[in-house]
C-alpha cells in the first residue's frame, strides 16, 4: 500500500528535484516538491515503474505562509498511494498538470479560484464555482464565524 520511499526519491531526483523529502505520515507517503516543478514531477511519477496513473484528488490548504497543494496519486497495478505536496506563495502561479492527468481540469480551476492563485498552462482557466469579484473564499484570511459565535446566535 505504501510505495518505497527510496524509489520515490530516486524518481524525483531523476526529474530534477534533489533531496526531496519523502516521509511517512498519518496520511501515507508524502513527498514534497518545489512549486513550479509539480507538472514535471507528476509526469515522471506517471511514467515510472511505480506507475502512478491515477490522480485521485487535488486540494489546496492555506498554511498561513502560503498555499500548499496536495496531489493524491494512486497506482492501480501496484495498489499504492502517494501524496505529492507543493508550496506556493499567495497569489502565486499554479502550474496545470492536465497534460498528465486530465482529471485535474476542473479541480485546478476550483483550487485556483478558491485560493486566489493564477492558473498557468490550463486550456480554460476561468472561475468555476463563484461569481466574478468574490475573494478567495477558502483562505484563512476570509473570516467565518467560530463555533462559539454560531452558538451565541
Amino acid at each position, binding site marked *: 500500500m505504501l510505495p518505497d520511499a527510496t524509489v520515490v526519491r530516486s524518481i524525483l531526483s531523476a526529474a530534477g528535484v534533489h533531496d526531496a523529502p519523502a516521509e511517512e505520515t498519518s496520511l501515507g507517503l508524502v513527498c514534497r516538491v518545489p512549486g513550479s516543478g509539480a507538472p514535471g514531477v507528476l509526469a515522471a511519477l506517471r511514467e515510472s515503474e511505480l506507475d502512478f496513473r491515477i490522480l485521485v484528488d487535488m486540494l489546496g490548504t492555506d498554511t498561513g505562509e502560503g498555499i500548499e497543494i496536495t496531489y493524491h496519486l494512486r497506482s492501480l497495478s501496484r495498489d499504492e498511494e502517494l501524496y505529492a505536496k507543493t508550496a506556493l506563495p499567495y497569489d502565486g502561479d499554479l502550474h496545470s498538470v492536465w497534460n498528465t492527468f486530465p482529471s485535474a481540469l476542473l479541480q485546478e480551476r476550483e483550487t485556483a479560484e478558491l485560493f486566489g492563485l493564477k492558473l498557468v498552462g490550463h486550456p480554460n482557466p476561468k472561475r468555476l*464555482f*463563484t461569481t466574478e469579484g468574490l475573494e478567495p473564499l477558502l483562505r484563512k484570511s476570509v473570516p467565518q464565524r467560530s463555533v462559539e459565535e454560531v452558538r451565541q446566535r
Partner: protein
Amino acid sequence: MTDPRDLVTDVGLLAEGAHDPGSPPAGIRRAPTGVDGLTTEHLVINMGPQHPSTHGVLRLIVEVDGEEIVAAETSLGYLHRGIEKLAETRRYNQLGTLMDRGDYVSGMHGEQAAALAVERLLEVEVPPKARWTRSLVAELTRIASHLIWYGTFGLDTGAMGQFLYAMRDRESILDILEAISGARMMFNYIRPGGVVADLPAGIDGRIRRFCNGFDAYLDEHHALLGGNEIFQARVQGVGEIDADTALAFGLTGANLRASGFGWDVRRERPYDAYPQLDFDVPVGTTGDAWDRYMVRMEEMRQANRMVRQCVDGMPEGDFTAKVPKVIRPPEGEVYASVESSRGETGVHVVSDGSDTPYRYHYRAPSLFACQVLEEILPGHLIADAVMLIGSLDIMLGETDR
C-alpha cells in the same frame, strides 16, 4: 502506455487557440461555413441551469451544428454553498451533516466517509455491530439512490411510466431509514465511532419483507425500461467511454466499471462490514450508456443481497465506540473514501489538534463525471446530451459542494 494527450480530443474546449481573450467562452466559437453565398452558423445553446431534465442545476453551454453537438462546456457553481469552508467551523461529529447535504440522495455514504476519516485520525476501533449497521444503511441508501437514477433516466429518454414505480420502492426504503435514523433524507445517523442509536426493535422484519419483494420489482423495472427496444436503441452504443479515458479523467464507481475496469472501494480498500459480506461487483465491457444502465441495475440486486446478509448476520454489542463528546484528534492528515452510489466519495481532513478541522476537502465523484461529459459530448446529438447526463448519474450537490 497511452499518452493522455492522445485521449483528449482537440475540438471545442481543448482546441489550440480555444482561449483567445475577447472571444466567446473557451472552445465555443461560431464557425460559419459558406456555400453559394449562404452561410450557416453554429448555434450556441444554453441547457440549464433550470431544465426539466438536468439532475440538479447543471448548466451546459453547447455549440451545435444543426442537431449535432460540436463543443460543450459545463458551467458549475449554481449549488455552491461552501461546504468545505463551513466545515472549518464545525466540530468533528457535525461534519456528517454537511456531507448529508453534499450528495443529498445518498446521504449515508457521505456520513460514512466523514466518520471513517475521523476514526482514522483518532485510531479508534468501531465495534462490529456498528460496522454492520453502517453497511446495512449504506446499501439501503445505494438502492434508494439508484432507484432515483433509474426513474429520472427514463424521464430523460421520454418514458414517464417507470418513475413512480421506482419511487414506490424508494418509499419503502425511506420508511425503513426513517425508522432507523429518524429522518428520510438528512439522516445525521453515522458519527465518528459508530452510529447514533441502536436499530429499533422489529426493523429486521420490515427489512426482510422489503428484500423479499425487491428482486421481483427489480425485474419489473428492468423489463419496463431496459426491455423496451426504443430505449435500447437510444442507449446502446451511445456515449462510449473506454477504460483509459475513464481512468485518465478520474471516473470511479459504476461509470468506471461499465468501461471495463473493475475497481470498487469496498473490495480494494475495505471498510465497515464489507470484508465479511458476500457480493459480486458487476463490470461492463464497452462503457456506453447501456453498460452503465446494466451495471447499476445489477448493483441494486447485489445491494439487496448485502442488505439481506446484514440483517441475517447482525452481531450483538455496542452500537458505537467510546469517543469523547468534543473530539480533538491529534495533528495530522488523513484521506478516507467509501464506495458511494456515484463512485469514490473521499474525505481529506487536515487536523491541527483543535476541535474543528483545519482543512476539509470533499472528493466528489460527480465532478469527474462532469469533466468527462465535456469530453464525450462532441459528436452526439442534443437528445443524447440529456440522456448522457442521466447515464453518468451526476449529482450537483456534491459537484458544487
